[in-house]
């Protein structure tokens, strides 16, 4: 069995009296697209932030590969890429300069020659269908292009796991499709993807496994088929299952669904 690239064991995060993430345990494997779902305020972003070192858990362990993010942050961070929901990018840099900057933060120049890094950056911009925009300032980019640059920066160092917070929100259908295809392609190359989303159709179509978090607790985990089985509704959509599990589906609708079965 492949070793997991991400392991969370009994992770808890509290903000004052509020427990944002409560005793969460989770494992993600290489080449897996993991969908992390939950209502607003359920603890999705907090979990991702703990996995990327932006927040420290109050208790529990977050391990990337063999490295604990709290004990060995620099080694653990080498393995991950992160694309926040609305990242602060340096408006006065061009897309190429920004990605190059990130590459140097990961010390890619130290390990490979500059031309190799430059070639990789060029390839990424071509792959991301924006080679002609690479030398324009980020401030002139559309929302979708900013998102693509952030993804490029998260992938430049051959990350083994990429965390994405709402990667398709605000994207037009073409860009959203492109992002989804990219995730499947990356997973095919062995990269693990952990993404949050509110769009059930995306999770249903591209995620290998899905975790549902509600009020800080992981309330469901498995493939779509497993979740359906758990919910006792073999023909339900993920949306129905999600609403049922999070208690946001009223009894009338539940009856209707039962009648349909």
């Amino acid at each position, binding site marked *: 069995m492949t070793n997991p690239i991400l392991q969370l064991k009994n992770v808890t995060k509290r903000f004052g009296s509020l427990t944002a993430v409560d005793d969460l345990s989770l494992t993600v494997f290489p080449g897996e697209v993991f969908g992390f779902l939950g209502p607003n305020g359920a603890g999705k972003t907090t979990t991702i932030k703990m996995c990327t070192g*932006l927040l420290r858990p109050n208790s529990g362990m977050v391990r990337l590969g063999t490295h604990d993010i709290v004990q060995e942050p620099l080694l653990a961070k080498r393995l991950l890429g992160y694309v926040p929901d609305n990242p602060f990018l340096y408006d006065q840099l061009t897309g190429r*300069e920004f990605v190059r900057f990130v590459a140097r933060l990961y010390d890619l120049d130290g390990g490979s020659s500059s031309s190799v890094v430059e070639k990789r950056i060029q390839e990424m911009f071509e792959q991301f269908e924006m080679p002609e925009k690479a030398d324009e300032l980020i401030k002139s980019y559309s929302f979708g292009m900013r998102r693509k640059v952030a993804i490029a920066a998260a992938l430049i160092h051959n990350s083994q796991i990429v965390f994405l917070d709402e990667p398709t929100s605000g994207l037009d259908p073409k860009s959203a499709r492109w992002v989804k295809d990219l995730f499947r392609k990356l997973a095919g190359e062995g990269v693990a993807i952990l993404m949050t989303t509110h769009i059930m159709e995306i999770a249903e179509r591209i995620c290998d496994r899905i975790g549902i978090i509600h009020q800080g607790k992981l309330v469901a985990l498995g493939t779509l088929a497993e979740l359906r089985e758990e919910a006792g509704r073999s023909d339900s959509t993920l949306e129905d299952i999600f609403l049922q599990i999070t208690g946001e589906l009223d009894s009338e609708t539940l009856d209707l669904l039962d009648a349909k079965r």
Partner: protein
Amino acid sequence: MQRGDAVTTFFVLLANEWLIFKNTYFRTRRRTLLTLGLLLLALGAMTGITLGAVGVLRAAFAAFGGMVEIVLPLVLNGLFLWLMMAAFSSGVQVVLPRFYRSPDLNLLISLPVSAQALFAARFLFTMLYIPRAQLFLILPILIAAGIVAEAQIAFYALVLPVFFLVCAVPAALSIALIIALVRWFSPKRIMIAGGILGMLSWLFFFVLWGGEGDGLIRILTLLEAAPLWLLRLFPPGMAAESSTAAALGDFAGMILPTAKLLALGAIITVGSLFLIQRLYHRGFARLQEIAPRKKQTAAKPVLAISPKRRIPFLGRWSNLVVVQWQQGLRNHEAALTALLFLLMLIGYVITMALFELPLGPLGSDLILFGHIGVIVFLSNTAVGIFLFPASITTVEANPRIIKERYWLHKVAPLSGHALFWSEWLANFLPSVILGIIALAALNIAVGNGLWISLVSLLVLGALTVGTHALDHGSTPYVLNMDLQKRETVFSLMLFIIFYLLVLGPLTIGQGGYALLEPLRFMGYLPQWALYAATTAFSMVVVILTIYLSAKLGVNHWEKMEM
């Protein structure tokens, strides 16, 4: 929209502003205590300014034979004139961010609320916001004038209302002026004009308080020559007449000028409010149209850095330094603001070179060290603004950027040490170069000798090294403790303490020998030993500051959560 609705909206908006203020400073017990603590510190600093001003004003009063009836109105005229200038320049600088760039405006304007009410609420709050710095700096000096003149209690009761009335006129005029100008000029040009006005206001300050009130005496002499009836036509004259009457216990005499000032303030404030409302809405619409046009022109390929070109120094530290510089050079708004501080620096050097200031009680060294403090402050500020990775208006619109900008550094495998030293290096190098050029020019202009010039450059280097370390060490602490709103006061206190600890002993060592002579035992201490001991003490303070700042910064960087 009914008038009643507009009035209701106005009060809803005012209540909202109040709520934001309350939540910012008094939401929890901890925040309240922190706010009260900082208020106490501010009051302490104001007391210090009052005591310092008492000394200078005594000299000014003495220069006019100590005749309170003659000198007090002149002093007050000068102070209120300065207050007007300062409030006007402060107004010019805050109107754009508050009326056109505020992040909540798009939301508020899209809501079905009365545009008049929205404008009126913003106008009122801006009027109250403008004199905040002057309250801290000029009010203590006005109180000092009362102390020196042995004023009646009525003076102290009147001084605060008069202070706000004097501020109201330039504040309203500055709002009206900028809103009118937005129709024809770009915000960038207006910002430059505002900066230049600010610079003039500070130059006036230096002229006024340089030396031992020498500049003040010159201004008073000029005012003395002006006809009194002419002075009384303007708000500073009215305020001076009213305050003088209160100080001398002439209560009947204070009624008419106070009433005139009140009427003038009310007419100008209400007049500005009604006259510029329409202009404001047109200007706002115009700026909305400008934004997309500008974006199109910005979309040219940037040729400055070729994709194939290797950046000279490799490694992560230099990477961070180079990127900060790249951004600074392209961030035109920040570059222009930094340029203004540079102009202030040049203006300061020229003014100080032209006005030969008399020696203070500790000799010329004290003045020189004072110059170094100002030069370090101006060069550091210019560089700090230049290298910040976002425009000032963006930060004003979203102060969270100060912390959010670190997300990438935090996610990347970057140690706290690498970040601290790279940020320090990126800021320190240009600051120290600017400072050395400015100080060397000043030393040459005032004819300082080689020895004192070299010592002054060493002191400048030490101060620059230390202040940047303090700045970059305290930033993660400030962000972790959520002190952004109080960062200015917090940093100011840290820097003042650092300056005092470094410059204090040096001043005593260099110029204070004579001062300490009366303490007999000092007479047995050779001058060279005093030089060496005080210099060594100051250098130890600098080294300790760097060490502790790095420790604090790195420690809080590791702990930082976002």
